[in-house]
């Protein structure tokens, strides 16, 4: 009996090759999208959960509200913050602070690695962020003043198969460290990316005792490290670029609530500087596992993910699954109707309904098993290329199996109830395979499918348009044919810094291919890390209400990036690269109380009690992506860089870029022999900011195409059945004089109606989704009505093409065939 059932099912599948493959393809697409996106979501939400007791580790962020209403919530905090908490509270087990540094690591003269993930931290680093110590010279990590701990993969990169312990490495301007320990890599899914850890006390020791002229460390045997005192003002004074990221780990059994309640009274014990005393200072405790998706503070350690995007990914999963499910049920119902005769013959011959159900169930199960198998293979191949350390988790598998079971059941119950147990299901009465099926369920399902698809189309076009807008927006600067490199690290603090820079500038500027050369603390596309709220009119009591961004530039910066001056003059060349002249941008004007740009020129202002003169006003430009607005900005002339690294920018004339870069390289090599010249294009740097948006858009487009494809397949199946059902009618109409186009119209009219209804449902929903997504951009494109019209048209045309393929075949068929009496 079982084998007969099985054979019957198989024969049926093979007989209806087209319908069967449409069903399978739809399921594969749906399950595939589910597996891939489920993994993606799990990856995004898995950040920083792998740490031992990750739920008791918190980052302590700083919330400062000034009297003037200005509030800055920074991911960074004062050194004193965690030290104070650790000192005072029993709840806090331990703490560590860390500061990211931009460094180049050298291994001998040959090898160097730029832009290393390097941090300064406390010896307690590994107590807060547990990592297995693979190998170590000592048990007291980060206590040796010359020692560093490096990650396993970094060790491999630097020393290959050799034993890294005891090896020497050189950092930036020549600081030499010894590898004391090798620790297990921090996985990709952490907001913390660390390859080298070095102690703060090492930093202070080297700063004090490194002879920059001779480039050697003059050891001081009498050096005593004095543990910092969190109650003194010293620990609460650093400007934001020198502040660390601060973490605490709670002792077992304590909750963060009891800690955060005590912050206010504790701060009273500290000799805070005046500006903090005048403000309301509070700490925000962020569970580290929340940082990646939920933290959107100023000065984040690394670019975080977007919770809304994860949310949207979830919606996409649901939507695509729904489309696939509807498709499958729909097509299953159709094939059941087509098989109705066989089922009724079985029942006439004594089969029970349960056995017919079994037949439907086996068929549905078979489809799902095949689809799950194939989609697992396909999704896995995609995952390993797209998601770091990706695989298919058992959680995904479990959900997949549950969904598969649900689909299997629903897809056989629906046709069973609507066809087999339907009153109209009676071949005995009508004597032939005549089934007055109510057509409503199919209509509703196809309409739903198309609604969803139209929503996806509208969103995809809308998002695409925003990305076009973002890419084509006037940024206010030009990064065309502009290269940038980091400033040479080996020159940090070096007394020759300005001299060499002048030589470099003169030689580079003399090259035929160079239009201009500039050095600055930031370039377009890179965040500005320096913020100040200590700007005031020269004779005023109080600073301006706003925080100003500060960039250090030279006289050629504005020219290099083609940023127009709207009033006054440019900075003038200075031998020592330093002056008290500043430029401000247009946005800064109103925050400084100037009525117009001309009024500002020549005025003096004070920044942190130093006086500066406004030379000129430049037009606003987008220093960072269109996600954020243009901030009031002050451009000052000096060589102060945010993390001991600035940027060289080169604007090239259009011809012979390769030749010019080779020439720059040789000048660089002469002046900075220890370092390689590595450059990138400024445009690329700016566009990199939209990488995440683009990836999201990509996922959305592919899902849309898939959903559209599945919807069309579903529609095709319905059209196929619809025309088949109407073959006789078409024949009758034709012998009664209907023309081909009249038949086509009659057949397509229904489908047009469905798509129209779907469209009406889809529009407001799409509007809602799109509106939400655009919220994350400070500068938005307008989503014109044409996007909605176009999307409707696209859906309609695609639906019509799909349906017409069938309709046309039916319309041109010879009625003699269809009307022949068997």
């Amino acid at each position: 009996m079982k084998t007969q059932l099985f054979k019957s099912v198989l024969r049926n599948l093979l007989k209806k090759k087209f319908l069967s493959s449409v069903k399978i393809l739809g399921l594969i697409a749906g399950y595939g999208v589910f597996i891939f996106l489920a993994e993606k979501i799990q990856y995004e939400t898995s950040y920083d959960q792998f740490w031992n007791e990750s739920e008791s580790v918190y980052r302590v962020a700083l919330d400062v509200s000034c009297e003037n209403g200005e509030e800055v919530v920074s991911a960074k905090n004062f050194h004193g913050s965690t030290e104070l908490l650790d000192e005072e509270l029993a709840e806090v087990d331990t703490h560590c602070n860390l500061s990211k540094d931009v460094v180049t690591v050298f291994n001998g003269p040959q090898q160097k690695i730029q832009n290393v993930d390097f941090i300064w931290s406390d010896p307690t680093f590994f107590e807060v962020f547990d990592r297995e110590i693979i190998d170590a010279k000592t048990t007291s990590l980060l206590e040796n003043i010359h020692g560093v701990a490096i990650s396993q993969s970094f060790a491999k990169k630097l020393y290959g198969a050799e034993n890294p312990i005891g090896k020497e490495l050189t950092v930036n301007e020549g600081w030499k460290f010894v590898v004391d320990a090798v620790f297990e890599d921090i996985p990709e899914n952490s907001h913390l990316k660390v390859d080298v850890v070095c102690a703060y006390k090492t930093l202070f020791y080297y700063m004090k005792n490194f002879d920059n002229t001779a480039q050697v460390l003059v050891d001081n045997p009498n050096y005593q490290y004095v543990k910092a005192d969190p109650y003194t003002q010293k620990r609460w004074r650093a400007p934001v670029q020198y502040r660390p990221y601060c973490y605490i780990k709670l002792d077992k059994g304590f909750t963060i609530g009891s800690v955060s309640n005590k912050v206010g009274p504790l701060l009273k014990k500290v000799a805070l500087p005046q500006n903090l005393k005048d403000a309301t200072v509070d700490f925000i405790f962020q569970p580290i596992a929340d940082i990646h998706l939920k933290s959107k503070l100023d000065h984040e350690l690394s670019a975080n993910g977007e919770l809304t995007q994860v949310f949207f990914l979830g919606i996409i999963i649901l939507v695509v699954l729904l489309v696939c499910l509807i498709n499958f049920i729909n097509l299953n119902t159709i094939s059941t109707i087509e098989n109705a005769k066989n089922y009724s013959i079985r029942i006439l011959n004594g089969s029970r309904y349960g056995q017919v159900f079994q037949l439907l169930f086996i068929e549905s199960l078979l489809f799902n098993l095949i689809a799950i198998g194939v989609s697992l293979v396909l999704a896995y191949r995609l995952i390993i290329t797209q998601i770091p350390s990706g695989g298919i988790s058992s959680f995904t598998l479990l959900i997949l199996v549950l969904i598969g079971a649900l689909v299997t059941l629903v897809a056989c119950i629906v046709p069973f109830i609507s066809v087999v147990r339907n009153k109209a299901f009676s071949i005995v009465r009508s004597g032939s395979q005549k089934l007055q099926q109510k057509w409503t369920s199919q209509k509703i399902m196809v309409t739903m499918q198309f609604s969803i698809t139209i929503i996806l189309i509208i969103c995809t076009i809308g998002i695409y348009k925003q990305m076009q807008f973002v890419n084509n927006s006037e940024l206010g600067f030009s990064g065309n044919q502009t290269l940038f490199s980091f400033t040479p690290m080996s020159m940090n603090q070096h007394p020759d810094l300005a001299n060499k820079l002048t030589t470099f500038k003169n030689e580079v500027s003399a090259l035929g291919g160079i239009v201009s050369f500039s050095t600055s603390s930031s370039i377009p596309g890179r965040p500005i890390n320096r913020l100040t709220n200590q700007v005031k009119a020269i004779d005023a009591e109080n600073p301006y209400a706003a925080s100003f961004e500060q960039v250090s530039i030279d006289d050629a910066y504005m020219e290099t990036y083609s940023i127009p001056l709207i009033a006054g003059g440019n900075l003038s060349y200075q031998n020592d690269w330093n002056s008290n002249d500043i430029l401000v941008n247009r946005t800064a004007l109103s925050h400084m109380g100037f009525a117009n740009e001309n009024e500002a020129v020549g005025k003096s202002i004070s920044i942190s009690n130093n006086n500066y003169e406004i030379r000129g006003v430049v037009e606003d430009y987008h220093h960072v992506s269109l996600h954020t607005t243009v901030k009031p900005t002050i451009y000052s002339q000096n060589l102060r860089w945010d993390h001991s690294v600035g940027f060289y920018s080169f604007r090239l004339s259009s011809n012979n870029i390769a030749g010019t870069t080779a020439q720059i390289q040789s000048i660089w090599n002469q002046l900075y022999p220890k370092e390689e010249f590595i450059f990138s294009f400024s445009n690329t740097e700016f566009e990199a900011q939209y990488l995440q948006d683009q990836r999201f858009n990509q996922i959305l487009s592919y899902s849309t195409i898939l959903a559209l494809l599945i919807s069309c397949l579903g529609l095709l199946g319905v059209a196929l059945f619809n025309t088949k059902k109407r073959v006789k009618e078409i024949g009758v109409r034709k012998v009664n004089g209907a023309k081909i186009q009249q038949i086509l119209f009659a057949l397509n009219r229904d489908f047009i109606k469905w798509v129209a209804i779907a469209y009406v449902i889809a529009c407001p929903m799409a509007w809602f989704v799109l509106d939400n997504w655009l919220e994350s951009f400070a500068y938005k494109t307008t989503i014109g009505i044409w996007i909605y019209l176009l999307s409707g048209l696209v859906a309609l045309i695609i639906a019509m093409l799909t349906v017409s393929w069938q309709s046309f075949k039916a319309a041109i068929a010879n009625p003699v065939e269809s009307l022949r009496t068997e």
Partner: protein
Amino acid sequence: MLLQLNNIFKWVNSGGQRIFLLKDINLNVEEGEFISIMGPSGSGKSTLLNVIGMLDGFEEGEYHFLDESVHSLKEKHRANLYKEYIGFVFQSYHLLDDLTVKENLEMPLLYKKFKGSERKAMVADMLDRFNIVGKKDLFPAQLSGGQQQLVGIARALISNPKLILADEPTGNLNSKQGEEIMELFKQLNEEGVTIIQVTHSEKNAEYGSRIINLLDGRMI
């Protein structure tokens, strides 16, 4: 002369073999004739009727309908020709299930550029003539076989064809219903409509003025 078939051959190729469906058919039909086609099942009666009705083509021979040479006409012209002059009646009625009697009658008119008011008048006329006014809002499934065939014939007649082609019109009916249909045909014929019917029944064949016998696609 209404139509003339000269040396008509129709065949299909199956497995490299030519299977003849019609062989050397010669037939003249005058206006006002009532012809019955008889022959065993599979002898080509329906095929011949379809050829006459221009629903199906043929491979060899000439077919003249009124003044037109059907064999050299384009598909579109042929369609126009049969739309104008020929009405079809089927064994299984072929009424549209989801249309009422009235709508079924109106359907052919929709394809023939009649105004709404004209259509109404013509349908009303037909309902009246066939005595089915009371059934105009019923669906085919609610009628008996004889009544369905009545509607089928009314539909075939509604645009005033010169020729009615009926393929076993009484095949699904009992003898009493069949007799009524035959009486109706006779009456229509007397009113001037040319009728060609396929039938298995000697008795029904007798209603016609001429009987054509087919065997294996050949007239005997």
